[in-house]
C-alpha cells in the first residue's frame, strides 16, 4: 500500500470516527435531565 492509499484510508477512517462521535453524542431533544420541560414521554415525571 503506497503513501497516497494510506492518506486516503486515514482520512476516511478519521471521518468515520468523527461521525461515530457525533452519533453517540447526539442527545434526544426530549432530554429532561435539566428539569421537566413537558416532554410527556414515558419517563416524564409530569405524566399522569
Amino acid at each position, binding site marked *: 500500500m503506497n503513501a497516497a492509499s494510506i492518506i486516503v484510508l486515514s482520512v*476516511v477512517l478519521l471521518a468515520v470516527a468523527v461521525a461515530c462521535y457525533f452519533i453517540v453524542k447526539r442527545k434526544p431533544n426530549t432530554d429532561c435531565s435539566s428539569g421537566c*420541560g413537558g416532554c410527556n414521554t414515558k419517563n416524564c415525571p409530569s*405524566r399522569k
Partner: protein
Amino acid sequence: MLLKDLKIGESAVVEKVGGEGALRQHLLDMGMIPGTELTLMKFAPMGDPMELRIHGYLLTLRLADAENIEVRRIDAESEHTDTKRKLREEYPYYESLHDHNAHPGFGEEGKFHSKKDENPLPKGTKLTFALVGQQNCGKTTLFNQLTGAKQHVGNFPGVTVDRKDGVILGHNDTLVTDLPGIYSLSPYTAEERVARSVIMEEQPKAIINIVDASNIERNLYLTVQLMELGIPLVLALNMMDEVRNNNGSIRVNELEKILGIPVVPISAAKNEGVEELVEHAIHVAKFQEKPARQDFCRKDESGGAVHRSIHSIMHLIEDKAEKAKIPVRFATLKLIEGDNLILEALDLSPREKDTLEHIISQMEEERGLDRSAAIADMRYAFIQKLCEQTVVKPQESKEYLRSRKVDRVLTGKWSAIPIFLAIISLVIYMSIELLGAPLQSLLENGIALLSDFADRSMASRGVSDAVRSLVVDGVFGGVGSVLSFLPIIIILFFFLSLLEDSGYMARIAFVMDKPLRKLGLSGHSIVPLLIGFGCSVPAIMATRTLSSTNDRKRTILLTPFMSCSAKIPIYVFFAGTFFPDHAGLVVVLLYLLGVVVGLITALVTKKLYRRTEAAPFVMELPNYRFPQAKNVGHLLWDKSMDFVKRAFTVIFVASVAIWALQTFDFQLNMVQNAADSMLAKVSGVVAPLFVPMQLGDWQIVTALVTGFIAKEMVVSTLGVLDVVSVITPLTAIPMLVFCLLYTPCVAAIASVNRELGAKWALFIVILQCAVAWVCAYLSYLLATLFF
C-alpha cells in the same frame, strides 16, 4: 334547548354547562360559562363537529359534547342589548390600584417599586423566566426573538411540545423557557400539568405572559390565574399591529394600573416592543415585584358568595399552603375547582376537608352555579369589565373576515374534502415529480461527476483498488445516493410548512374529525399523520398534543404507515428503473396503499380495543395568516441540516460498514465474489423468508436489513451491491410494498420507545414487519397475473 339544536347563524346565551371532568373544565376555561353569548357559524362538511363564535374567536365542538350544553336562543336584536346591559348593571367597574398601593408608575422603567422597600436579588443571580401563554398566541415567535433561536413555529394550536431553553440576547445571566401553550392552570392536559410543574417546582424568577391582543378576553383568563401565583409577572400584548390595523386600541397604562403588573405592547413577528419587554421582565425579576392585584372577586358581585367563600378558605388553609409552598390564593381557587393534586399536596385534616366542603356547597347554593362554573364566571366577569374599561375593540378584524371568506370554500360542505385531497395530491406530485425530480437528477449528476473526479485523482496517484473502492462504492455510492434526494425532501417540507403556517392544518383536523372518529381517533390525529408523510420522528412526537393516551397509542401505531420522505428515494429508484412510463402513478399508488393499510389497521385495533371512544374535540380555529418567509426558511434550514447530518453520520458510517462487510469474508480477506462476503452469509440466514415472493437473494435482503438503520440506506445499499440485475418488474412490486410498510427506521423506533415504552416499540416492529410481509406476498401474487 340544547346547543346542538341551534341553527347556523343563530345566537344563544349559555344557560348550563353539563358533563363532568376535564372536558367540562376545559369548556369553562375556554369561556363557555353560563350567561355567555355565542353564535353557531357552521358544521363541518360531514355534519359534525360544529364551529361556534364565542368571545370573538372560533371554537370547534362535537355534537355529542354540545348535547351537554343548554342554551337559550336569542331571537331579537333587543335581547343582545339586554344581555349586555344586564352585564353592565350586575358587575361594577374596577378601580385603578394606582392610588392605594406601593407601586407608583407601573410600566415606567425604574419606578416599579418604592426605593425604601427595594430588595433586589444578589448580583450574579441567574434570572430565570417562564414564557407562558395560550396556544397559538406567538410564544415561540417571541422566544425566537428573545433568544435568537430558530425554533419551529406554526399557525396551529399546540406546535410546541418540548421544553425549549435559551438565553436572552445580550443578557447572559438570563434563561428563558418556552412552555407549551395552555388555556388555564388546571391539571387536565399534559401541557397544563407541565407548565404548572415548571412554574411551581422550578420557581422561575419571573413569568413573561404573552397574550394575543386581538383576542384579549380569553387570553387574560390565563393571566389572572398566573397572577394568583404571586410570581413577578410581565404581560406582553402580542399582535398589537393587527389590533391597530383594525382600528382597535388598548389603553395600556390603564390596563397595567388595574392589573398591577407591567404591560408591554409588542409585535413578536415584527420584533416591535421586544426590547422594552426584556427591560421590564429583567426589572420585575431582579426586584422581585409581585403582581399588585390577586383579588378578582368582589364583595358586591352576584351577592358576594364567591368572594366570601374564597376568603374564608384562604384563612382556613393559610398555614398548610405556606407549609406546602403553594401560593395561598392559587391553592384556594384550585381547591374550589376540585383539583385533587393540590388537595393532596396541602395534606388537610378530615375536619378541614369537611369545613372546606361546607363552605363550597354554601357558595354553590347562594351563587346558583356549581363550583367550577362559579370560579370561571368570577374570572371572566373581571376580565369582561376590565376589557370594557381598557379595550377599544375593532369592529371585525380583517384577518377574521378574510378567514371566513376562505373557509367558505376550504371547509365548505361540498368543497372541503375534494380540496383537501387535491391539495395533498398536489403537494406530493409537486415534491416528487414536478419540482423534485429535475433537481434531484441535477444533484445526482453533480455527485457522479465528483465521484468520477475522485476516482480518477486516486487512480493517477496510484491509490490501491481496495481504498478506491471504499471511497467510490462505499462513501460516494452510499452517502451520495442518499444526498441526492435532498431537494425532494426540502420541497415536501416546504409545502407541509405552508399548510401549517397558513392555518389550513387546523381546518384539516376540523374537516376530518368525523371520518377519523369512525376509526376511533379524533380530528387532532390528522396532524401527526400528515407530518408522518414528512418524517415519522416528529410525527410521533407531535402525538403529544393529543389529550387521550388511547388516541396517542393508536395514532403512533398508524403513523409509520404514512409513507415518510425517506422512502421516496426507494420509490423513485424502483419506479424509475422498472416502470419508467408510469413512475408517477406507481408512487401515488404506494402512498394510497400505505393510507389504506393504515385505515385497515385502525379498524382492526378499534375492534380489539374495548375503550376506543375518541377524545373530545374542542379546538380553536386560528385565522388564516400568510406564511412568514422567515419561519418557513428556518424550518427548511433545520430539516435540510438534519438530513445532511444524518447523511454524514449514520448513513456514512453504515455505508462504510456495509462496504466492509461485502468486501471482506470472515477471515478478513478481500473477496473476489461478493456472494462469499460476510454480508452475504449473514443475510442468507434471513433470505428464506423472502423466497415465496422471489426476493430471497442475499443482496435484496441486505438492502432491506440496512433499511432498519435508515430507509435511505435501502437505495444506497442497492447502489453499493449493484442489485438491479437481480430484480425484475415482477419482484420490484413486492419489494416496493415491503419497503412501504415494514418497520420504520431506528430513529422512529427510538421515538416510539420514548413515547410509549419498549413493549410498544417491539410490538410495532413485529406488527409492521408481519403486515409488510403479508401485503408484499399478496402484491406478488397479484403481480404474477400481469407479468
